[in-house]
């Protein structure tokens, strides 16, 4: 256990700096963007926070930050090969190989969750800020329960913080599939296994389709039956298990050197 703790601490340590930076942008970015947007809207601003948030570009910023987190992981991963060749050292460590794998996976997951949490805090701060700003402009009676309504009505905000169990499961499945999938992708690349592109493509298409659906739910209010998304979530979880299982095999064979 102690070995794993140290490995995890080491792997996260490599991501810590960039994660902190991205988290700071997630918390502060909307404040700046909302300020610009409110200035732009002049004396009769849109008082709905979900509209303000989207219009200010904060939603786009948040999507980009999560992608940047993944990119920074790739950077850290490949630097072990390109710069110090530390991958050879790590493979000779007296630790079970699956622990090496698990520590990397958990470090990436932690990094993603940290940026995501910072985004939620940023939404909260942005709400308080725009409420203040709206009152300063002269909107005397802001929307009662505005943050709550924004999380219900805004497609992007509802995606970030769903209130429904099926959507929570969908979020968890996407997060796990992305995390394990990225790691699987680089391991395939390192061990020259081209066929790994197939499950990755299927996974990516599934995730994109779920995202496209969930980010347009409010345009689908007249559709008769909503989707539970249970099928896609279970499929992504199954794919996650496959990614992890294959990933551990790569490590055990030492095929990634």
């Amino acid at each position: 256990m102690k070995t794993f703790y140290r490995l995890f601490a080491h792997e996260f340590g490599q991501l810590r700096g960039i994660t902190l930076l991205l988290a700071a942008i997630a918390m502060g970015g909307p404040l700046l963007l909302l300020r610009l947007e409110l200035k732009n809207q002049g004396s009769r601003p849109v008082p709905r926070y979900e509209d303000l948030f989207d219009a200010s570009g904060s939603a786009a910023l948040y999507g980009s930050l999560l992608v940047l987190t993944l990119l920074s992981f790739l950077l850290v991963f490949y630097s072990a090969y390109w710069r110090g060749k530390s991958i050879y050292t790590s493979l000779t460590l007296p630790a079970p190989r699956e622990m090496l794998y698990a520590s990397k996976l958990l470090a990436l997951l932690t990094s993603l969750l940290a940026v995501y949490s910072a985004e939620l805090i940023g939404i909260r701060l942005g709400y308080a800020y725009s409420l203040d700003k709206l009152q300063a402009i002269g909107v005397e009676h802001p929307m009662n329960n505005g943050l709550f309504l924004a999380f219900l009505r805004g497609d992007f905000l509802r995606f970030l913080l769903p209130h429904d169990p099926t959507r929570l499961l969908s979020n968890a499945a996407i997060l796990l599939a992305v995390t394990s999938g990225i790691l699987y992708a680089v391991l395939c690349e390192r061990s020259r296994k081209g066929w790994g592109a197939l499950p990755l493509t299927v996974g990516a298409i599934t995730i994109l389709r779920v995202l496209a659906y969930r980010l347009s739910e409010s345009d689908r209010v007249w559709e008769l039956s909503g989707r539970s998304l249970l099928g896609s979530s279970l499929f992504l979880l199954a794919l996650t298990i496959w990614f992890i299982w294959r990933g551990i095999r790569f490590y055990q064979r030492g095929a990634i050197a």
Partner: protein
Amino acid sequence: MRKSPWTQRLLRHTAIPALLVSLAVPGIMALDVFRQKEEAVVLLETLSGNPSVLSDVVLQGEIADAVHRTSFRVAGGQVENRTTLLRQPKAERAYRYSYGGRKRIGLGDDLEYEVGDVGPYRIVARSMSAPDQTGRSASIPAITRPVKKSDGSESRSFANPLEYGLAGDGDKLYFVEPVTREAGGEATIYEIGKEDLFGQAKDSDGAPIRKRVSWPLVPASVDPAKAVDVLGLEVVRGNLIVILYGREGLTLRCYDAGSGEQTGTVTLPDIRIGGSDESEPSKAPVTTQVQEGYRAYADNRANSLTLGFPRSFEENREGWAEEVLSFTFDSEFRLAHRVTVDDPNTRESRLGYGDATAMSYQNGKLYTIRSLNILHSADQQREDSLALPSSIRINVYQEGKRLYQGALITDLNDDLLELPDPSAYSGGGFSYRVERYRTLMNASFFPRNEEVGP
């Protein structure tokens, strides 16, 4: 920059705390945000009268959009509300009868009805949650004779949309042709079992129909004094009420659905429907001009029927006015209450798909709830606009006088905040979206002892 050994040692242990914090933040945020669903506002403000007159009834309804709904309940001076969140945005298909549209019978029923063809007719029922599920009745013969035109062609003319001739009561539907006074022949009320509409074999003719009541029609060309328009049909607890209009004024005839016997008649000679043939002046000294497109509120629990006839615009009056007639069936069929509901400088709220109005006559009082736009002088220029703040008004009338008026204060108008300055708003460019604007839906009054949960 070199880090001190202490900092380095501390940094070595950030991984687990980072993971724990990152897991806790979303949980805390979710609890904090969704706890706010308890903070919806529903309050009853008394504008005039004593609120104790509401104590005999329970008022229930919803303030809803496509993502959440706040059910409220006004009982014994207490206002309670409870908010539920929808899994994903979904348009609420609330009850509203729109003139000429498909008809829904009763609150909470999944079916909507349409009368197909123009004689012979066919009742088509459609499930709102599964539109591919449709049921239909057998062909209903048009017994009334079509009117011969001068060019030799024949046509039927109707006093109201065909759906006015359709009414329902529990598991049965009834239909009568809403023909004008030009028609002759025999008017007939047919009965159709609601269950029979569905599950018929593909090649079958549809749900069987049964004749219940028939009476002869005298065409206006034969005897204009006896000719009547059939405006519509309503059902309350097995009482079939046919609404007729002729020279004698508005006449309601009540039949027993089981035996087909006529059990009562009420005639209101002073009620005149604009646009009808008025070659002979009414006998009544004072007349009330109304329009034929009435709204009916059949209350099976309270055993009463309330009809709201919009007052005629010919009088060039401002605001919304309705002649509201309430009938009871306890010992005999009779007009129990009549009142002119007249709210100057108001307009019925047009926002949303929900029925903003409910009326019920019980305990000797008429209870109404309506969603109104209060028109201020600044609003007059944008009277056609959908997006006016609405005021939910509760009125109680007794013996033709208003006993009580209250307003239900809710968050609903917050959704219109993006239009804060009426004078700057021209009326164009507003588009209603069900997921963005809350409306009053599914309002109804229950007798205090027979209430059902929200």
